[in-house]
């Protein structure tokens, strides 16, 4: 066990955990922030996506010991009132069905749009390839990303 001081959603959090513990479980079990979802545990589905600095990462493969000073943003911290352009676009396009994978989809999409504010269809497809939606909302996710891109640039 070891002590870690983590910057999560702008706040400093202290945890005493095994250094190999993935951030996914630090968030869910220790910090009780359950918006970040467990899907596969091997970085194949994207349900656990968070931002490490400005990058979208799979928190199930990110040991707490590798975080260091970098800030972590989760779905709970993406915006204060659920009004990030990507969140708004998701509501506008009524994307979700079961909704379970969507926080990972939103975190991946928001990091991607920051780097590429005006993506083509193909760029969206490639960027989102690591996020599985078992309900099959892919066409709506793409629409929502384009919608968010146009609002952001407006």
């Amino acid at each position, binding site marked *: *066990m070891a002590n870690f001081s983590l910057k999560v959603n702008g706040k400093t959090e202290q945890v005493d*955990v*095994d250094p*190999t*513990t*993935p951030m996914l*479980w630090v968030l869910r*079990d*220790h910090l*009780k922030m*359950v*918006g*970040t*979802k*467990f*899907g*596969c*545990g*091997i970085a*194949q*589905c994207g*349900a656990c996506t968070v931002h490490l600095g400005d990058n979208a990462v799979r928190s199930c493969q990110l040991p707490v010991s590798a975080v260091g000073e970098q800030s972590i943003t*989760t*779905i*709970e911290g*993406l915006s204060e009132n*659920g009004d990030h352009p990507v*969140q708004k676009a*998701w*509501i506008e396009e*009524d994307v*979700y*069905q*079961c*909704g*379970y*994978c*969507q*926080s990972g989809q*939103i975190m991946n999409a928001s990091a991607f749009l920051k780097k590429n504010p005006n993506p083509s*269809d*193909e760029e*969206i*497809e*490639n960027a*989102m*390839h*690591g*996020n*599985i*939606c*078992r*309900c*099959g*909302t*892919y*066409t*709506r*996710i*793409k629409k929502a990303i384009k919608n968010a891109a146009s609002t952001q640039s407006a």
Partner: protein
Amino acid sequence: MTLIKTTFNRRSFIKSSALAGGGLVIGFSWLASCKPTPEQVNNMPKEWFDINGFLKIGENGMVTIMSPNPEIGQNVKTSMPMIVADELDVDWNNVLVEQAPLNTDIFQRQLAGGSQSIRASWGGLRMAGATARHMLIAAAAEAWQVPASEITTEAGMITHIASNKSAGYGEMASKAATMEVPEEVSLKEIKDFDIIGTDRRNVDGLKLVTGKPLFGIDIQEEGMMIAMIVHPPAFGMSYKSMDAESAKSMPGIKDVFPIDVYPEGMEKQWSDGGAIAKMVAVVGETTWQCMQAKKALKVEWEKSSTLENTAGHDEALAKLLNTSTKEPARSDGNVVKAFKSASQIIERTFSAPFLAHNTMEPMNFYADVTGERAILNGPIQTPEFLEKSLASRLDMPVEKIDIQMTRMGGGFGRRLYGTFGVEAAVISQKMQAPIKLVYSREDDMTQGTYRPTYKVKYKAGLDKEGNLIAWHVKGAGSNDDLIFENRFPAGAVDNYLAEKFSLETNVTTGAWRAPRSNFIAGAEQAFIDEVAEAAGKDPIEFRLELFDRAIKSPVGDPEKNDYDPKRYAGVLKLVKEKSGWDGSMKNGAARGVSAYYCHNSYVAQVLDLAEDVNPPKVDKVWCAVDCGIVINPMAAKNQIEGGIIDGIGHATYSQMTFEDGKPQQSNFDTYRLIRHKEAPKEIESFFVDNGIDPTGLGEPSLPPIIGALANALYKATGQRHYNQPFIMEKPVLG
């Protein structure tokens, strides 16, 4: 104006009372629409008459509709209250939807399965809204001393024009609670609906995009520990012994022990279908600690029955299809004679593998079984059955068992089988402490309850003019006999024979989105395409000819999930028109067509592959649907799109295979699911506007798309696809 009775056989579907603190409560039966015949009444479960939904109107005019149904992603939590709100004549913005408070003594929940939620509750929901509206009008009539017939309502306001009086629903709610429940109420005409048929966004949208704890796996309770399981690595293997010493000494681990989840002699429910009798439980402070301890654990398993292989399943199914039964499922005319006179005979065999459900939220359940009571909470579609299993397993009266339900991160049939709830309860009882059981993805994927593996052999005979004169279908599946003998093309061909077989296997199976249809539709619709080609006819025209014949000699009863050829032909004509199908392929895109009927809804699809793209890619799907009245088009289209992507994905990429009883796929690195760039670029849906009572959409768009895909791939590549997943038969979707 349609008048409907609020009672049946002297039992009332509606109850009313005053709301504590002022206002009106209407309790109603969501299943009041079943319109039972007198003969059916004696056999009908008494719960069908029980009050299981609630509608509250507060003095502030806010309407709260309590939904007893679990949300799995079909959007019933939004669509069902829309029906109540429309009949009530209230502004949708003033409606709150809440999951019903969880009291199993009051709330008899209906099963969320078979795309039946909307179909079964349509009448009951309308009745509830209309009854509340009538009582509000009655209250106003008495208060204002005017005839009720002169009072009108609109968007939550009650008005009497002649005396220039008006009031909000909230103002009349408490008085309305003192009115008699009317014996019959009038319902709106379809043309007067102003919420039904309009796009309304998911009521939980904001919670979903902000990561609120809605799912079973999100449950956090004081003093709760995490539990995980280790189940046998193969079907046909059972627990023998273990060495848990090193695992037990690991940080955070509270205990490691074998559990008899289903001891011999325990009274099981159908929902315990794929149960594993004995496994090992690991209990610890956190999920990660449990995962580490599982790795350190040494469990010895022993062979307890056959260790089966995929090759063996395949052989056994093929063997069944080479036998004949003396008792066919359906036989019309004389196929033997007809095949002798046929000028062309086409015979093809299709197959599909086992599939896992792979809900994105792995199985999990919270349980607190201490002393003489059990509290459970989690994602389950069949709480009543789980309650019965627990009563037997824990030797506890059902009154002491409280099961609550959370939103579910996907179902697809998997959460009908609540073995994980029993496992959680047994673990909690042993620990005498609250626990949350969480499956790893591997536990989930290798645990069974799969979509069965199937094989079907079709034989069709054509006469000189290319008319279908004989049809013989033989189907077989693992623990499932596959064939719906009264569905198309029964009735459309004079000489028809259907035979079905079931292969007993120890690989456990269960319902998987659109059971049986999820395979048979694709096979049948790909075969029809080949037969139409042999007949030298356009595939849509060929099908329409068959429907014309079926209209003249209808088969079965549409109420019993048999088909109505007119509605079937209707969706095919609609998709033909919308997709601009002219049979010529002039536009360069390879197109395939397919149509199917299941779960009381009709679907026809045209699928276009992108021009000159290798490997092929789905460009666009046109989908025509007849599900009667559409409650919420935006949500309905979402279901259709999801089913299409799901169908394309599983038919193209997914399979569960077995070596010596061991599943060969255990996570998303080996089990391939469809991803963003493999999905169609565009899906456009159209509805037949016929005013018929609504039917469901959770399943019907999935089955036929597999046929449309196979038929389009043939046009693009010249290769027919007979065996799923198509990726095993090149070329594949890229």
